[in-house]
């Protein structure tokens, strides 16, 4: 009995290590490649391990590359992501509060409508959105980049927050109501402070979805100065990277690092969010 347990444990760890290696090794490979000198002829992959040839020259080259203002693009990504996440947090908490706590005619029908919008594929919306944004003269502007596209599904946000708001004891808001608080104050002072994990989850997913979005920023921007990091990376690959893999991998590292740091700092919310999004039982 003991022996089979040991064998089983060994098998579990062996599988985990194999899976972990498959996941991690490509990233290690990327990082090692990025440290190689530009235009280095990589004869054997073992060359990558030679620490004497390592340098940060590629990073310096990319960060100061005049053709592709990557710092500006990174700032665009940060700005767009912040705006999208804050905007979605605001409209989703307002709506989720109403769906969880307030009574009004047509509430349930509206909520069903909201969940149905989750079924609409973004591909159906993207062509008309482009036409609309073009008509409004908002192409290649921050407004056109930020508002029209549901990077972060509004329906998902409402769903997740409503679920959480409903688990907060009603006695809390009733006490505040007796003190003469308005609905908005109850939401701000009672509901939201006790929903920090849910809000953090929504923000965490919103950050990643917006940060990594490719299709809409590709269409909605046309000048280099308005591109986001994700689109910039693909442009870099097509126009300047060529077969210069050390440079390409360094550019990929620059794009991946912020998201990775963000994830490692907030990873518990990624796990919680998935679990809370209506999947219990």
């Amino acid at each position, binding site marked *: 009995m003991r022996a089979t347990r040991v064998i089983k444990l060994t098998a579990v760890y062996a*599988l985990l290590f194999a899976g972990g290696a498959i996941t991690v090794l490509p990233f290690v490979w990327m990082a090692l490649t990025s440290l190689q000198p530009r235009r280095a002829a990589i004869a054997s992959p073992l060359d990558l391990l030679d620490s004497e040839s390592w340098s940060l020259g590629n990073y310096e080259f990319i960060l100061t590359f005049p053709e592709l203002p990557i710092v500006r693009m990174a700032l665009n990504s940060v700005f767009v992501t912040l705006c999208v996440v804050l905007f979605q947090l605001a409209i989703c908490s307002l*709506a989720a509060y109403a769906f969880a706590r307030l009574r009004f005619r047509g509430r349930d029908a509206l909520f069903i409508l909201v969940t149905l919008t989750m079924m609409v594929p973004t591909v*159906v919306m993207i062509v008309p*959105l482009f*036409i609309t944004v073009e008509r409004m003269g908002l192409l290649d502007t921050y407004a056109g980049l930020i508002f029209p596209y549901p990077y972060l599904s509004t329906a998902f946000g409402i769903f997740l927050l409503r679920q959480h708001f409903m688990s907060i004891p009603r006695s809390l808001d009733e006490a505040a109501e007796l003190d003469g608080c308005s609905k908005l104050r109850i939401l701000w002072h009672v509901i939201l402070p006790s929903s920090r994990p849910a809000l953090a989850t929504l923000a965490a997913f919103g950050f*990643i979805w917006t940060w990594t979005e490719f299709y809409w920023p590709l269409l909605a921007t046309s000048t280099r100065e308005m591109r986001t990091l994700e689109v910039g*990376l693909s442009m870099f690959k097509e126009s300047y990277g060529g077969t210069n893999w050390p440079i390409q991998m360094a550019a990929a590292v620059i*794009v991946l690092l912020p998201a990775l740091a963000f994830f490692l700092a907030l990873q518990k919310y990624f796990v919680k969010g998935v679990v809370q999004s209506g999947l219990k039982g």
Partner: protein
Amino acid sequence: MKTARPMSVAGYLFVGPAMLYLGVFTLLPMVVAAYLSVHRWHLLKPDRPFVGWDNYRRLLEDPFFVNAIRNTVVFTALSVPLGIAIALAAAVLLNRGLPGIRVFRTIFYVPSVCSQVALSMIWIWVTLPHVGFVNWLVGSANALLGTSFATDVNYLQRFPMISVVLLFIWNGLGPRMVIFLAGLQNIPETLYEAARVDGASGWQRFRYVTLPLLMPTTFFIVVTTTIAALQIFTPIYVMTQGGPNRATDVVVFHIYKEAWHKFHIGQASAMSYVLFSIILTISLLQFWAMKRRSDMIAESA
């Protein structure tokens, strides 16, 4: 009922912004797309006549669109079962209180927060002939085992569809795995104990306790993964551009080219609606199948 009125007004005020947003940026585009799809609408030509079903009729006669549909179906049929099986396997392995298990959970989640453009670039680089990581592994194996497998294989060119499938699975593993983990943790331990008392083996416990009780979770993952797979775009754009020889030209990428290379907005909108109908039909069928199945289980119980 003096309190009922302000209550109801407050409700509308609170849902207002979100409803307005969804209305303007989700429902309105759907209406506009429907309008565009029945017009011959060239982005650069001012004349945009109504053509009725003509755009849709022409789609059926377009061998490249049919090819794109076929590629999308193949891609989905490969990536959904495989992606779900791997996510379930990872969840089962991680669903034990073993030391160090959280590190693996973190590692398996990482590709899901990564830029698809960057992941695609990594994929191209590791599968290159000679210098790529995969070919280097093959070469090392050759040296070690005395075999002589080719090390000049361009895996992306040789297996374009499989490449995109594997990238999709790699990129999407995290959330699927975590949802499965949540599902597994909801299964009461007493059921496993009862099965053990009845002499069920490990596999039997998985087959007759875990899988059936995991059905609602699995169902959710099947639906969401299918919808995601049908809309695959970025890896195709970066890695293959639909090639080689249209082997990975999936519907969303085909729509992209129709709209932004040829400027056939009407035609592209008709294609979008065809894809939307497919997604809707599949979701409804899956809901129906799920309901039927749970009805059957309820009857037999």
